[in-house]
């Protein structure tokens, strides 16, 4: 007994230590029984069978194609994915290959999670510019697709109410857009446009900062990346804020209902400002009557957000050559087409677009490709984006609920600037 209790105590200690360290096990780049190097890969696609199916196809094709590497993948739900990456990085446990949302890339590259992608330039040059992530003149991420936003409408509804159908050559002006909303409200739509304000998180900067940019403001002064002063609280930004608050105050938009495009499908709203991923469902419901319209020109041309999920190689990957081989293999047009058609996203190469059911020259969803090429604005490529995104969301929600626009934007600017200063400029000085 005298000797046994200390053993119990130390056994307890060992268990506790093992528990804290158990995250370490199983993520190394091991070798398989037949001597192939394992490349671990994480995706955010759990719960998205269409996307996972394509990944599984690529991985099994790649694993069959050669005998040096074997890719082993693990999927996380999107909501928990970024936390998993940050936790893995903190414990030195990152997978070799990981996917990431475009705007977070500079933050992770700056923090040292990622290594330069170093894919052949002819490959990265063939991709949509918004599908390639650049930080400090190095490419750190590349994706198979981009997403785009547009305004959905029914042709019959616009024509029936005498509203001009906008085109890319002549989009709605701010006044025309407002007049159209007023007409539609009079026509009996309680809230004529669904802009998705019931959603939260990254949707807010992704969907609403393009309006700000169309007014001539921005999230940050992109020439220095050191301050938001003047960009986010200048007269253009205030004009945006008042316009945005007006949408809600005048009853043209609201923030209840369900996330997604259901209200448009059910004809409860006349217009829907939403993403390409909802387009096939809308097409099925509305058919030929569906119009995919450019967002309004609020002064500086229509704008939409650019940059979606992309792939990177972690700095901890001990066989980056293998990871590169896999990525190169995965960027074949046939896979890109498959992603595009199964997930309804814009293919990153023109060849893949032409082969696709929806995005070719005659495809029903072709306008999205053109919007993406013409209007897409990347979210600011700075490690401060994590903070900018959260601050903008709070500020825009306050403005939506009637807060003083100038005061709210000034506060947002001081929050963002304080954060940049406390990070020594995020490497920009």
């Amino acid at each position: 007994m005298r000797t046994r209790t200390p053993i119990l105590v130390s056994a307890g200690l060992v268990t506790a230590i093992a528990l804290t360290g158990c995250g370490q096990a199983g993520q190394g780049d091991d070798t398989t029984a037949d001597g192939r190097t394992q490349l671990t890969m994480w995706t955010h696609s759990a719960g998205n069978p269409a996307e996972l199916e394509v990944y599984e196809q690529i991985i099994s094709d790649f694993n069959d194609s050669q005998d040096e590497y074997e890719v082993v993948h693990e999927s996380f739900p999107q909501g928990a994915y970024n936390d998993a990456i940050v936790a893995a990085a903190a414990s030195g446990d990152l997978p070799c290959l990981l996917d990431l949302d475009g705007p977070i890339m500079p933050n992770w590259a700056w923090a040292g999670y990622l290594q330069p992608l170093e894919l052949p330039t002819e490959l990265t040059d063939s991709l949509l510019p918004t599908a390639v992530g650049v930080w400090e003149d190095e490419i750190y991420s590349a994706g198979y697709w981009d997403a785009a936003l547009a305004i959905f409408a029914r042709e019959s509804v616009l024509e029936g109410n005498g509203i001009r159908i906008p085109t890319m050559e002549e989009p709605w002006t701010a006044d025309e857009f407002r007049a159209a909303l007023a007409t539609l409200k009079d026509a009996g739509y309680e809230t004529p446009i669904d802009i998705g304000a019931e959603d939260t998180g990254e949707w807010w900067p992704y969907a609403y900062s393009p309006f700000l940019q169309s007014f001539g403001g921005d999230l940050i002064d992109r020439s220095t990346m050191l301050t938001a002063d003047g960009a986010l609280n200048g007269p253009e930004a205030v004009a945006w804020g008042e316009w945005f608050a007006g949408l809600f105050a005048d009853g043209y938009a609201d923030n209840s209902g369900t996330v997604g495009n259901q209200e448009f499908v059910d004809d409860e709203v006349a217009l829907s400002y939403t993403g390409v991923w909802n387009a096939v469902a809308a097409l099925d419901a509305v058919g030929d009557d569906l119009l995919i319209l450019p967002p309004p020109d609020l002064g500086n041309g229509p704008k939409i957000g650019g940059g979606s999920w992309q792939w990177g190689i972690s700095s901890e990957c001990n066989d980056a050559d293998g990871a590169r081989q896999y990525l190169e293999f995965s960027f074949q047009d046939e896979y890109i087409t498959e992603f595009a058609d199964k997930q309804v996203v814009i293919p990153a190469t023109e060849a893949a677009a032409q082969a696709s059911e929806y995005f070719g020259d005659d495809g029903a969803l072709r306008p999205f490709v053109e919007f993406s090429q013409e209007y897409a604005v990347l979210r600011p490529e700075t490690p401060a984006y994590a903070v900018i995104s959260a601050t903008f969301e709070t500020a825009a929600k306050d403005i939506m609920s009637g807060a003083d626009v100038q005061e709210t934007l000034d506060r947002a600017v001081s929050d963002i600037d304080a954060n940049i200063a406390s990070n020594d400029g995020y490497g920009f000085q």
Partner: protein
Amino acid sequence: MTVTPPTVAAEEPRRELRRFRSIKGRETWAGLGMIAPAGILLVLFLIIPVVLAFTLSFTNARLISPNPPRFVGMDNFVRAFTADPLFVQSVGNTAVFALVVVPVQAALGLLLAVLVNRRMRGVTAFRVIFFIPVVTSIVVVSILWKFMYQQDGLINSMIDALTFGLWSGADWLNDPQTALGAIIFMSIWQAVGFHMIIWLSGLQTIPEELYEAARMDGASPWRQFTNVTWPGLRPTMVFVLVTITIAALGLFVQVDVMTQGGPQGSTSTIVFHAVRKGYEQQEIGYAAAISLIFFVAVLIIALIQRRLTREKD
């Protein structure tokens, strides 16, 4: 364990002494062994994090950053009170929430407990009904109430129907005037059942003879309550008060699910603000400072409560 016969002890006093020591030693080891599992977990998940938070709160540590953390002295604390209006607002909101929820929830819980403590038909059904919200996940409850509070939601439809369209209700969660009130109302409804059960257990410890004696003295039900029930509930009252206060000060999930601190900061709380600063904005050092302020505040309030409710005799 073996007991040494006394005769042997008389012959060999030194050995007896050693044996006595070793028994004591054994007990010490056994004791240590028994507290080890709990002790290790406490150190790992309570003491180490608290020490870490304390240390981090004096640095500018980031969640993600290649820059090493720097010691910044009291900067974080000064910033919280002078340069972060949302923090000050969050302190105010948390205080208002606690000041309303603690008395109202405790009183309602007691009222319900007295009602369901009667001997009548279907009393179990009532107890179950009041207790259901407690066992439902607060996340689920918050999502459901978020729908009910919508402009065209259930609550406004009900108001509309009851007032024959005279009053159509507010956009509860999107109006800075009503958002915190809406969360307070829902939170009281959700947890009142839990405190009802605690009060109920307290009520059932009061001996029936006391009521019998009171009735024989001709005491009215109200006199019975003030002179028998209430004094008998004193220990329960202290427990209910302390648990509600701590739960109220830690308000987070409802805010996170229903309003994200908005509109215009009207529902932001201290814990929510700390989480938002620490994770969303990656300022772990500053968030640690907020948590430390919160810790000290809760400690002070708990000590005051202990003093006010201590047994005077």
